[in-house]
């Protein structure tokens, strides 16, 4: 059938697209990577069209080929990738340009890049040159594609910076990227992309590296600019919330193939393909507390257990403070400020906050992986009380068998040079009275089965496992010494959305079976709502709000929490609302008063 379509396309003159609003047509695009093990079709027969003033979201999980699709359009596929088939046609008022026929290094395609089609990348840090000013970098594209003189170019750049809401553009034009925050850098990238009024804007996960509030601002900005200039936007993301918020049309990709395309309402409310259903399903599932959690909470209400298993009192952590250095004291960064919180037996305490709020530092300080500047931590795991701050090396070693950690990055946290058995057995080996090698082997096999892997996987190395499987290995390692408390630091952030709920369900199962208490550190409100009993919201090193998860997530009390929640995009196109969000601007002292 595709054959027929493409043959028909060759016959019908391309100068007259069916829809006059179509600015870019992609038909049967195929991009292959020639690898040692064979040919990998990163993009396999993908077709779609971009329309003026409309946003097409390309969604898919990692490895689905969405970024390669974007790069194939601009012919900037990294080696050893090659566009091997299909056509990409740009419809301009003065005629069509068949991009797929252009040489990737030709002047013709360079005239299109940045002028007709621009691109924004994910990492605002690495896509800007650190040694040139922002103004200079935007000027580059004006210099290439327009014939404005120097003064006119500067005027235009200031206009652009003003347009993307960068404060004081007359001054900031001469600043360097390191003087910009992450959000400002992404704004500058957008200004650069818009410099020549492109017809198509390709945004490759432009908000993934940003906090939710900054993400909301950037999404708002792109939408405003689109309304104003009428460009077509191709927005690549894995976040279903973002899709629901901004998309007009959605194309779903899986393993390089195009699964289905439809209007945003159709995709969310009447998906046709199983894969789409699964994708939407797992995003929507995380919008509600887990059913298993609700049962557990009901049981807890029946027999309340308010005894804290871990108490933190007045914890402070200051990084980099020194005494008098050449007569001047260096103040340092106050990462955790006067935090007091209890973790109750069998409960899950969520800690949410944006990057730099001190949530990870708090998690590491209460295990004394970082030495807190002041404060006390009391652990009441067994019958006695343990003053964690007073423990010596040996004491900490015992404590680390009771309090375990699950790391964020399933790749960096497993030693690639040890087998799965060695990794999981490590906490057992290092403790006295662990029994013999055969006992350890049996225990490891048992743990592997419990986390959903097979005992015969024991001899394998981590590189033989996918991200989700690796995280399961990390969980098995955490469970090995029969712990009481698990600190999970962004344990699901690196995983695709369909795996996220699986891993969370697995952790819930263990919580029920083994009577575990969790400290769950996350920036993602939906996983916290799904998984936690109580939530502490951190802002600039302080806990600004602490309460039952339901209450904090659905009816927050503190202004910051309100602002944070209103910026979270929901995976439902009928509930668009981040442009109506609250903004929270507060100095550190305000935050303290309003608590």
């Amino acid at each position, binding site marked *: 059938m595709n054959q027929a379509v493409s043959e028909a396309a060759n016959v019908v003159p391309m100068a007259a697209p069916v829809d006059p609003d179509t600015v870019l047509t992609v038909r049967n695009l195929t991009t292959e990577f020639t690898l040692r093990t064979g040919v990998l079709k990163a993009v396999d027969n993908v077709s779609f069209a971009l329309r003026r003033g409309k946003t097409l979201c390309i969604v898919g999980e990692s490895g689905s080929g969405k970024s390669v699709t974007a790069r194939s359009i601009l012919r900037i596929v990294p080696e050893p990738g090659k566009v091997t088939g299909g056509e990409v046609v740009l419809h301009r008022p003065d005629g069509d340009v068949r991009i797929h026929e252009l040489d990737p290094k030709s002047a013709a395609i360079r005239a299109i890049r940045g002028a007709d089609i621009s691109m924004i990348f994910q990492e605002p840090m690495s896509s800007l040159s650190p040694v040139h000013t922002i103004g200079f970098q935007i000027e580059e594209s004006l210099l290439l594609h327009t014939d404005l003189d120097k003064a006119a170019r500067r005027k235009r750049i200031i206009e652009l910076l003003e347009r993307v809401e960068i404060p004081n553009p007359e001054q900031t034009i001469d600043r360097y990227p390191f003087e910009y925050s992450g959000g400002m850098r992404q704004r500058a990238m957008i200004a650069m992309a818009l410099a020549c009024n492109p017809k198509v804007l390709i945004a490759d996960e432009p908000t993934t590296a940003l906090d939710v509030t900054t993400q909301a601002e950037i999404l708002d900005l792109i939408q405003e600019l689109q309304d104003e200039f009428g460009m077509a936007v191709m927005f690549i993301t894995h976040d279903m919330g973002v899709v629901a918020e901004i998309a007009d049309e959605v194309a779903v990709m899986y393993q390089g193939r195009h699964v289905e395309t439809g209007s945003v309402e159709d995709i969310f409310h009447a998906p046709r393909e*199983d894969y789409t259903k699964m994708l939407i399903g797992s995003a929507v599932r995380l919008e509600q507390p887990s059913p298993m959690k609700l049962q557990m909470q009901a049981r807890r209400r029946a027999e309340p257990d308010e005894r804290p298993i871990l108490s933190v009192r007045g914890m402070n952590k200051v990084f980099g403070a020194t005494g008098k250095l050449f007569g001047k004291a260096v103040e340092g960064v106050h990462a955790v400020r006067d935090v007091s919180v209890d973790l109750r037996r069998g409960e899950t305490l969520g800690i949410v906050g944006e990057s730099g709020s001190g949530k990870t530092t708090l998690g590491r300080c209460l295990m004394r992986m970082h030495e807190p500047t002041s404060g006390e931590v009391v652990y009441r795991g067994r019958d006695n009380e343990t003053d964690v701050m007073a423990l010596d090396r040996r004491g900490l070693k015992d404590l680390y068998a009771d309090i*375990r950690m699950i790391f964020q990055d399933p790749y960096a946290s497993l*030693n690639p040079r040890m087998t799965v058995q060695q990794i999981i057995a*490590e906490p057992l080996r290092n403790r006295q009275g662990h029994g013999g090698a055969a006992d350890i082997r049996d225990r490891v096999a048992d743990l592997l089965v419990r986390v959903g892997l097979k005992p015969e996987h024991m001899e394998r*190395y981590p*590189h033989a496992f996918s991200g989700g499987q690796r995280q399961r290995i990390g969980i098995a*390692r955490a469970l090995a010494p029969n712990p009481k408390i698990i600190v999970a630091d962004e344990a699901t952030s690196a995983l695709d959305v369909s795996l996220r709920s699986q891993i969370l369900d697995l952790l819930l199962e263990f919580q029920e079976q083994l009577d575990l208490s969790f400290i769950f550190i996350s920036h993602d409100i939906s996983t916290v709502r799904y998984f936690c009993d109580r939530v502490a919201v951190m802002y600039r090193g302080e806990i600004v709000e602490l309460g039952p998860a339901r209450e904090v997530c659905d009816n927050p009390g503190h202004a910051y929490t309100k602002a944070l929640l209103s910026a979270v995009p929901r995976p439902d196109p009928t509930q668009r609302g981040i442009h109506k969000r609250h903004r929270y601007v507060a100095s550190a002292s305000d935050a303290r008063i309003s608590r």
Partner: protein
Amino acid sequence: MTTTINPDGGTALSDDVVPIADARGAEVAGQWRLMWWKFRQHKLAMASGVVVLLLYLVAIFAEFLAPVDPNAFNPRYTYAPPQELRMSFVDQNGDRQWGLHVNGYRSEIDRETFRRTFVLDDEDRIPVGFFVRSEPYLLAGFIPASIKLIGPKEAGQPFYILGADRLGRDMLSRVIHGARVSLSIGLVGVFLSLFLGVVLGGISGYYGGLVDTVIQRLIEFIRSIPTIPLWMGLAAAIPLTLHPLMVYLIITAIVSLVGWTDLGREVRGRFLSIKDEDFVAAARLDGASEGRIILRHMTPSFLSHIIATVTLAIPTMILAETALSFLGIGLRPPVVSWGVLLQEAQNVRSVVTAPWLMWPGAAVVVAVLSFNFLGDGLRDAADPYAS
């Protein structure tokens, strides 16, 4: 679509996809096997590895491979040119006869310069054989033997495939024996600097702080000293009465005194970058002791890098020995090394009249290039987990 729906409503997907699964069993392959697979693709490095192996075999079995004793001199054949090893000859009847042989020499006096020159005499055939009897010797220094790989069937006949030097000594035998000293001084030197580099670099990287600062400043100080004058000064301090072997050891120590700084920095860098990896933090939380963290968790991650660096450091050592001996401040005769042999080729006259004196130079080039290519391949393969 390979979508499966779990009974609880969740859906399993891609979690079951094993990224590496092939017939070779990559999922159970440890780092050394992965490195070997990666290294094997580097054809030049593979070939160089074979050459390096052969060079060391030559060094070990020097007595067996060298046709004569490297110090045996014969005033009759000073500066005798290289002979050609021939498979066959034509006899008086015009028939082709088979038999491995070399031609003997006839000396001629140049009427103008009155210089004696050697001319190969086609009539004079010296039969050559494999595994010929020789004077008894000790193979590799301790195995009594009296068989040479190749040599004239009748002992005492001239046999100079690579020519002879000023005293009529066989260049081939000397180059072969030179390999033993030149290649081993590289190893000894590198192991000494490896020891210093790993210990000092490791301490510097793992503990940091004041210790790190002191060691790094020391490294910078050592690197700021011009090396050749330093070597010359130190070599001048070696008493002339010492046994050549002692001199050899002292020279090695001198060379590695400067050589460890590179390795020290490399090791420190590895420690610094691995110290903050999540898997090291995980090991600490697993209750592993400091020693276990360093030896079991951190060392395997950079051991391969160290091996690659060491391989790249050996040619530097070989070149240093050659340079020092060439300048006359390193090894001295009667020790036979490539640098010592090249001393013979120090003046232009001898190079013009006897270009075969440069053969040790060729040996140095082959050895250094092989080590560099091998080291390059090892370095590329050293981290099989990098994407």
